């Protein structure tokens, strides 16, 4: 198995920078996901690791060897594509055998490996079918099979689940993760779906506009996003972000916002002591807001906007100072729209971002893993 290392890797198209200066080390047997909105450069980066694209700057290393000028075929890594990219004129057997035939493996060995892989993925009965005769899920399995059949050093996966329906997607998510753990392989995975990224990866690489925003475990990235973009991108429903002012009230720091004020917990206050008062962006996860139908101390009065029961949990939309916020509740009573409700903010769930740069002002790893952050991402 293998390590993949990127040193200041960049790709430009004319004057347009698709990927700028990415530094990243993917360890052996690690599952790392490049995640970001479409057009953020994640697929470009993956293609550079694959060798399908040459970086315009920087170095790509596989197992410590610089491979910038090595052909994809000689990098010994395999790739699964979004549209599966099965060879339509070959049957399942032919598709699985193709990478082995290209490596001039003896026929008997090819046969053994193809059958072994087919058995692993439940494709044994489908070997003589053509790709178009398979369902989406089966095509997906063949694509996976073609990637694992030759036991490469690492796997690259480019949005492999986005062509599947929702139910199958969840199932294949678990299957891919199990396969990665069972085979003990290095996987670099690309997706725009933050749920996929959170649930499958050892580490996330959050990208936006060609730049790496943050690298970390799903929990790190969720709990302690380095900037407003990462906070907004990771988590479902999205974090509530709105402008607020940092005020010093007789030595104690307070956050003032339209429609109310929030005290600042001690761990955060310590970090903010050096800062001048001023405008900030306040972030608070839906799970850190509790909504009540009756008044209680410390809760802000707001108006109910909408209730979205999903079965498991309920999203409660409220307006506070003219802004729409969402709260995630286990349950919520049926009350008329626009009635007065009271929102309680779990202050330990507080995120603060610089009003201009969007950089996080708090190191939230010092926050107690308390209320509001107990319920992780779905």
């Amino acid at each position, binding site marked *: 198995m293998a390590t993949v290392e990127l040193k200041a890797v960049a790709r430009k198209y004319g004057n347009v920078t698709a990927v700028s200066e990415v530094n990243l080390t993917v360890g052996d047997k690690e599952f790392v996901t490049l995640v970001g909105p479409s057009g953020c450069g994640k697929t470009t980066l993956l*293609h550079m690791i694959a*060798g399908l694209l040459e970086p315009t700057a920087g170095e790509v290393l596989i197992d410590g060897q610089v491979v910038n000028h090595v052909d994809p075929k000689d990098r010994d890594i395999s790739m699964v594509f*979004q549209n599966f990219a099965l060879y339509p004129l070959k049957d399942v057997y032919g598709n699985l055998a193709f990478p082995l035939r290209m490596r001039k493996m003896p026929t008997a060995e090819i046969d053994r490996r193809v059958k072994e892989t087919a058995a692993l993925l439940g494709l044994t009965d489908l070997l003589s079918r053509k790709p178009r005769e398979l369902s989406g899920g089966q095509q997906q399995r063949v694509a996976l099979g073609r990637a694992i059949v030759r036991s490469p050093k690492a796997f690259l996966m480019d949005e492999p689940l986005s062509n599947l329906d929702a139910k199958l997607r969840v199932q294949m998510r678990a299957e891919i993760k199990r396969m990665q753990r069972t085979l003990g392989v290095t996987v670099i995975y690309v997706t725009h779906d933050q749920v996929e990224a959170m649930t499958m990866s050892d580490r996330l690489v959050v990208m936006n506009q060609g730049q790496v925003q943050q690298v970390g475990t799903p929990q790190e990235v969720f709990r302690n996003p380095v900037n407003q973009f990462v906070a907004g991108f990771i988590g479902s429903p999205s974090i509530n972000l709105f402008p607020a002012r940092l005020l010093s009230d007789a030595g104690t720091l307070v956050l003032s916002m339209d429609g109310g004020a929030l005290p600042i917990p001690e761990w955060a206050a310590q970090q903010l002591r050096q800062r001048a008062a001023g405008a900030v962006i306040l972030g608070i996860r839906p799970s850190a807001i509790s909504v009540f139908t009756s008044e209680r101390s410390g809760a802000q009065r707001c108006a109910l906007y909408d209730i979205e029961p999903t079965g498991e949990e309920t999203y409660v939309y409220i307006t506070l100072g003219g802004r729409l916020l969402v709260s995630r509740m286990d349950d919520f009573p049926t009350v008329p729209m626009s009635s007065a409700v009271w929102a309680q903010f779990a202050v330990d769930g507080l995120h603060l971002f610089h009003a201009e740069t969007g950089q996080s002002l708090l190191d939230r790893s010092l926050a107690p893993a308390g209320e509001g952050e107990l319920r992780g991402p779905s």
Partner: protein
Amino acid sequence: MGGHLTRRLLASLGLYTVLLVLLVLALAPFLWMISSSLKMERELYQYPAVWIPARFNWENYRKILLGLDPMTTLFGRQALNSLIVSFGTSAFGLLVALPCAYAFSRFQFPGKRSMFLAVLLQNVFPLIAFLLPLYFMMGTLGLRNTYAGLIIAYLVFTMPLSVWLLKGFFDSIPPDMERAARMDGCTRFGAFWRIAVPLATPGMIATVIYTFTIAWNEYMYALAMTSSANMRVLQLGINAFFRQETTDWGGLMAWAFIMSVPIVILFGALQKFFLRALTAGSLKY
């Protein structure tokens, strides 16, 4: 219910009538050609015309195929010439158009757009516009009255459509399929050759049919580019039937029929493959 059924019946009746008319229009000249080639001399001018000759006269075919008529002794040679030129045009056409179309489909290079437009623009000019320039160019190159000269001339005017047709096929193949092939162990060329080219089979067949038919039937360039009798192609051989005083219609029709056989066979043989290739490629990749 009854009205609905009647309407459907009327609709299909109308459809079949139209198809029948089209079929008759398309087949009548062809059948007339066969009929005339089998008639005795006097039946040719008989009025009212007869479609089926009283007695099949195979003489026209005998004299062509066995070279009995002094005017048509070169049939064998000319058939060979036609086959060489037509196969040559198809084969070289494919050989050049395939990578050309692929490059236009897959690669980014400066001037790509204008070059592709230039290729297509050539179709706008009438064929005769290229006749003189090509005639003199072939003279300079010493290719007049050679197979190569004629093949190159035909390539000049079949290439634009061939490239355009094949580019369309390559455009419909997702590039990820070739990327997959490169990951699986193919070189860049290998991905083109092993994956893209087989998937473009319907396009290649259409291209072959098109170029072969053009080369097989073209008259003007064939006449201009060849001068000696044994370099003439079949379509020029027809001239031999227009004699000083008379026209040998029976012989001419037999010649024309013999000429149409390879084209019919080509269509028949490739159509099956063409359809199979089309359905095989119809997977929504």
